[in-house]
């Protein structure tokens, strides 16, 4: 879990074009990596839920982790793109029953307003069940174009699962960041 975003960055920048495709795959596929990003929806934050009533709040109960986890404004979602698993039968860090969590994921850096610390958030996608359809959310703080896969949330990262069909996205704390995000 240590510095793998940096690893991925270095890997992409220096190894990339010299490396064979197979060895790159082996490296990236070896486990939880700091590579790219899942991805799916846009402007959901601005658009909100046309139609149906909003979801009622789901909170952690911990004042150090404040906010409504069904809301796109929740702090961990600063670079998420998709349906929030908290609204889909899962939670902020667990996939819904029936899905598989993709081990390959996109990593964001979000600031927790309660302690003003920057946390590394892994946006692992839940796969193998069709679009959840609830709590669509797209935020792009730190997102960069596909040229930098590990910083882009438009890829379907369910490619790391047995089925690439996308259901929803989690936002798992995997560590603290030394620096604040851009």
């Amino acid at each position: 879990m240590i510095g793998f975003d940096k690893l991925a960055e270095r890997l992409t920048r220096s190894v990339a074009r010299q490396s064979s495709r197979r060895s790159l795959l082996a490296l990236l596929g070896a486990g939880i990596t700091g590579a790219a990003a899942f991805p799916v929806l846009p402007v959901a934050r601005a658009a909100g839920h046309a139609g149906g009533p909003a979801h009622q709040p789901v909170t952690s109960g911990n004042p150090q982790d404040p906010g409504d986890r069904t809301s796109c404004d929740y702090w961990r979602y600063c670079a998420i793109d998709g349906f929030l698993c908290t609204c889909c039968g899962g939670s902020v860090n667990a996939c819904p029953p029936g899905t598989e969590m993709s081990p390959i994921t996109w990593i964001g850096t979000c600031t927790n307003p309660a302690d003003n610390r920057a946390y590394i958030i892994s946006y692992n996608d839940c796969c193998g069940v069709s679009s959840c359809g609830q709590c669509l959310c797209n935020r792009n703080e730190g997102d960069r174009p596909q040229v930098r896969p590990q910083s882009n949330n438009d890829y379907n990262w369910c490619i790391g699962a047995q089925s690439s069909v996308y259901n929803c996205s989690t936002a798992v704390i995997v560590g603290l960041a030394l620096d604040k995000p851009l």
Partner: protein
Amino acid sequence: MRLFALALALAAAAPACAQPAPLAEEPLLQVARLPDVWPKSFVVVHDINFNSILDGRLAVVDTASPNQPLKGLVRDSQMGGALFSRQRGEILTAETFYSRLTRGERTDAVTIWDMKTLQPKGEIVLPGGKRQQSVIYPHLFQFTNHQKWALLANFTPAQSVSVIDIDARKVINEIDLPGCSQIYPTGERGFSSLCADGSIFSVVLDAQGKAASSATIRNVQEIDHQAYFSTPAYIGGTAWFVSQRGLVQGFDLSGPVAKVVPGAFSLGTAPGADPEWRPSGYQVINADTAGRLYVLMTPHGKEGSHKDGGTAVWVVDPVRKARVAIIPLKGPTMGIGLTEEDVPHLVGAQVDGTINVYDTQSGAFVRSLGATVAFNPFLVYTVR
């Protein structure tokens, strides 16, 4: 470029102060499970998903949870069928697939899903590409033989019923059923169907799933003017049907063949109608374990109003043949279900996708789950 480090590194670098410890790292690759025994407040909502009918779903819903009612989704493609068994710990779906989503080779299959994980456990491929696709009737796919077998309706438009041995993962027989539709499990091993000539037809199956005997009762339905909605409510072994104009008729299906319960009765009238109260929706009648019927009613009843959805539920005692209460609904409702709770709740699935929960005793509105579980909720399954 961002630089990352360990919590440890940050802790070392940070000045000592009164700040609380950072939030802990969380485990990855967690997938939620459902309780080993589903709470009695759980129901399953069938989402036909009109905008992508080939991507229909079943939503597992906790009606007691106002903020996280959706517990998981199970695929139910292309006007699929659905069965639930606490005894088996399984959900069965009957679906149709094409090799290129909308075209190509057709595969009909029953998939068996584990109720705790919602993961597939097995599949039974169905030959012939003839599974009936309709919007949307629970009695096209039913258990019989103590949930060892499933019965599935076919329509090409020739009508038949496939007998499926679930544990053997195979179709063991096909019963021709020209002129009759729907599957109402009857007795230990068999089923009844309603027929176009107004009769009810019962088949007794032998141990190999073959028709051992059959029986017909003529003139149980006047289809032109008192056609029954295809989905009845069950009280014990009796299936209670209601007609498009509010006639209630019971059929005793506990024995090997169907028997007519004497004494059909009308739901009667009530004020506030324009022009009259009639049943309306896709799941218009249901029952609780206390023996009360719940009928979804529209005040705008007339020819053609029977699928518009209703705005009130009439509670009826079929023994006294009398209405005992009226439950007003929050909005136009397509289907009504009941929870398995000791004091059951009424669950209304609205046209706008909203699921609302009502108290069956007082008739009071209890809570709304919002439009948070399904795009087009049509049926609310009680899971037994």
